[in-house]
Each structure stands twice: as C-alpha cells, then as structure tokens.
C-alpha cells in the first residue's frame, strides 16, 4: 500500500531527472535570439531557413515570433540580437535612434485587402488601397484590424491616413490584438474586411471564406528588412551571430530558397527576394 503512495512521487521524480538532462542552458555565445513577425513563422518560411542556418554556422536560433512592434521593442531593450521585420517607418526610426547597426533589404511581398465574397462596400477591383478604405468607411462595413502595432497594423494606419477617414472608435472598426492568422479567422467568421500580407493569406486560404478584393497598389508593398542590434548599447547582444544571420538572409543561396518557397504548395511564391536592391525599385 505504501509503495503505491510513493510510486506517484517516483514517477514525477523520473520526469524531473529527464528534464534535468535536457534543460541545460546553451552556451550564450552560440545562442542567437531572432525577433521576427508572425508572418515569417505562420507561412513556414523560417522552418525552412533556420535549420539550414543552424547547420551551416553552428548557432542555435531562438525564434520569437511576435508583431513587428514588439520585435523592435525587444531590439531596443537589447532582448534580441537580430530582427527580421516589415515596418519600414518604425525601422527607420529604430536606426536613427542608434538601436541598430545595419538594416538590409531581404525580400518583399504585398498586402492585399480581403473580405467576404459578397463585398458589401463594393471595393472589388479598385486599384487604390486608400480609395477602398474610403468606401469601406462610407459603407460602415466591418473592418477587423490587428491593433497590435505590428508591421501590418502600421501599414493599415498608413492607408487610413491616405483615405482620410475617421476610423478609431467607430463601431464598424474592431481590433483583435492577435496575430495575422488569427485575425484572418476572426474576419472570416464575422464576414469583415481586413488587411493582410499575401503570404499568410495564401497559407490560410484553404480554410478561410475570404477573397482578395484589392491588390497591386504601390502603397500595398510589404517590405522585409533584417536589422542587427547595436552592441554598443547592449553589450550582451550576440553581434557575431546577428551579423552571420543577416549575411545569411541576403546570401545568394537563401535568396534562391525564398524565391521558390511556397511554389509547390500554393502555385506562386510567397515572397520575392530583393537582396541588394533599392526599396524605390520594388514592385516595378
């Protein structure tokens, strides 16, 4: 009888021993913290790239997938070594304030405005994102926003500025505070419109009842940069690892993988490699 009572403890004890073996912390200089956006994780791109990088360099990458806003805050606080983000205005500020040492163009894809096929605001086929937002506001059609300071959210605010409509606090304007994938699900369930990067939309399209309504406007470009955190501000940052990762992202081999990533599954690439190009030349 007594044995039975102890067996529960022994059982947990074995688990503890097992855990002890595996939770030994990695050597600091070989660990790299990559703060990135949800889109690079939700599309599966990083699942392809990170193992290649780790094998090549021996670094262990800790990928923390959050919104671009949070990723940059992590960089500012020295809690990440390298950032892969898509929020150009905020990135420029980040560099101006001296938090980063380099910022390199990696790839782009585009944002699309998606919504229910019935399209109550009649925006389908419009050529301008601002025009589409204006019509949605006029029709008071439900718009589901990320509302999380992510790159997509910043882009959305930029387009609202172009449209010139009041949206904050309006009844038809709802903020989820969630990642792109979850926000798309919310929009689909509520038959609302939302702004999304094409990659995440394509990755989820099979389960969503949302169609692409507006695409192709220059304002809808979605540009990804890789930034290394400034070690002068944060001596604990792994600058060698950050540089290795940034170099890897713009290397020829990686750019080739980005070019073909998703073609087999979705019929078209999810990202277009842009290393070495100028932002002004994109989308032409």
């Amino acid at each position, binding site marked *: *009888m007594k044995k039975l009572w102890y067996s529960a403890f022994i059982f*947990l004890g074995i688990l503890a021993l097992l855990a002890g073996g595996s939770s030994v912390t990695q050597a600091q200089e070989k660990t790299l913290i990559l703060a990135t956006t949800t889109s690079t994780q939700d599309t599966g791109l990083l699942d392809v790239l990170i193992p290649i990088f780790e094998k090549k360099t021996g670094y262990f990458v800790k990928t923390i997938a959050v919104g671009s806003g949070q990723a940059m805050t992590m960089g500012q606080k020295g809690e990440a070594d390298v950032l892969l983000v898509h929020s150009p205005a905020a990135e420029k500020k980040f560099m101006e304030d001296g938090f980063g040492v380099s910022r390199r163009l990696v790839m782009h894809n585009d944002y699309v405005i998606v919504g229910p096929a019935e399209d109550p605001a009649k925006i389908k086929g419009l050529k301008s994102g601002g025009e589409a937002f204006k019509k949605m506001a006029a029709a008071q059609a439900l718009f589901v926003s990320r509302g999380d300071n992510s790159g997509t959210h910043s882009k959305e605010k930029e387009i609202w500025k172009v449209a010139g409509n009041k949206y904050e606090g309006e009844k038809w304007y709802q903020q989820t505070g969630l990642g*792109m*994938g979850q926000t798309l*699900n919310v929009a689909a369930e509520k038959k609302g419109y939302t702004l999304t990067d094409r990659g995440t939309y394509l990755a989820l399209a099979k*389960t969503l009842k949302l169609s692409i309504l507006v695409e192709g406007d220059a304002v809808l470009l979605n540009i990804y940069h890789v930034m290394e955190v400034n070690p002068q501000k944060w001596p604990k940052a792994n600058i060698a690892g950050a540089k290795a990762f940034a170099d890897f992202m713009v290397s020829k081999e990686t750019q080739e993988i980005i070019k073909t990533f998703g073609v087999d599954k979705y019929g078209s690439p999810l990202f277009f490699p842009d290393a070495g190009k100028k932002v002004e030349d994109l989308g032409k």
Partner: protein
Amino acid sequence: MDLIIEGIKKAFWLLVSFDPEVLGITFLSLKVSGTATLISLFIGISVGASVALTRFPGRRIVVSLINTGMALPPVVVGLFVTISLWRNGPLGFMGILYTPLAMIVAQAVIATPIVTGITLAAVQQLPAKLRLQILALGATRLQMLWILIKEAKLSLLAAVMAGFGGVISEVGASIMVGGNIKGYSRVLTTATVMETGRGNFDVAIALSIILLLLAYLINLVLTQVQQRERPR
C-alpha cells in the same frame, strides 16, 4: 464537424506513426510540467503544512494570500518571469529566458500556491487532538509532521492533480517565457496556439486530443493510487 473528425484521424495517425516532432513536443510537455509540479510539491507541502500547524500574527492575511495565489493567472506569471529573466533584467545573468528551464520556473510559480492552498486546507482539517496524541506517544515534531502529512495524503494527491492539471494546460506563461521555439521549447499548448494561427485546425485538434489523453492518463495513475489508499 468534419474538421473534428479530421482532427481525430490526424491525432490517431500522429500517434501510431510516432511522429518525431509530436513525440518530442508531448515529451517536453510532460517533462516541464512534471518537474514544475514536483518542485511545487516540495515547497507547497512544507509551506502549507507549516502554516496550517502554527499560529502567528497576520496568519489570516498569509492564508488569504495563498488562497488568492491559487487563482494566479498564468499570463501574469509569464509577464513577471519574462521581465525578471530578460538578459538586461534583474535575473538576466542566469541566461535562461526562452529555455525549458524558464518554463519550469514559471509553471512552478503557478502550481506552488495551488499545492500550498490544498495542503493547508487538508492539514488543518485533521483533528487537533491527533497532534497531541502523536506527541504524547513520544514523536519528535518532525515525525509528527510526517505522520500528519501521511494522514492527509488523500487530499495531497488531489493537490498533485490540481497542480499538474493547472500547469500542463496553461499556455500564457509557457509561450512568453519559452518562446515556442521549434524542437526546443514548444509544448502541446503553445503548438496548438501556433497551429491555430497557421490555419492548420486539424493538427491543432490533434494536439489538443493528445494533451487531453496525456492529462487523463496521468490522472488515472494518480487516482488509482489515491483510491487504493482510501481508508476502509
């Protein structure tokens, strides 16, 4: 409905094919939550029993704090543990943020008040005269404590189940302090959140089913122990 059936099929398939990634995730869930529960048992039972058996000023406040701690929200724990473990934070020198160890720490913080609270209630419930009797028979204070804990074991096993159930099912703290890193700190709950975000609902359902199965099996073992030990 189709989706749920798809999910069940997927769960079955992932289990019978011994999918290495899913096995790793399941095993890590078990290890992290099991270790955290074990730590919480050591702290929780000693603190709970001590508070139950002593009288001191402000005791009611301490007891109410422990009882409030039983409802400690995992995200709140996650937030504070993350901030403390930041490499430029107060405990940053340890360098354990985004590791399974950090998840064990956070989960232990969540489970400890649960175990403490239940232990407190269990030991307090024992007849007060029992203590006198044990001491009168010549036991030392430590021996008395051990006998009392054994007397309360049915409730203490409930504490184990509640503590373990609380941590194996939480996601808020694990995702914040562990980072949901593939093949390293990804557990069943954080993987479920991610797969839902990716729109892979079948995989998400499969992971949920595996989590439920795991929780059931562990509780089955503990319940067996508990019920056989029931006084007749």
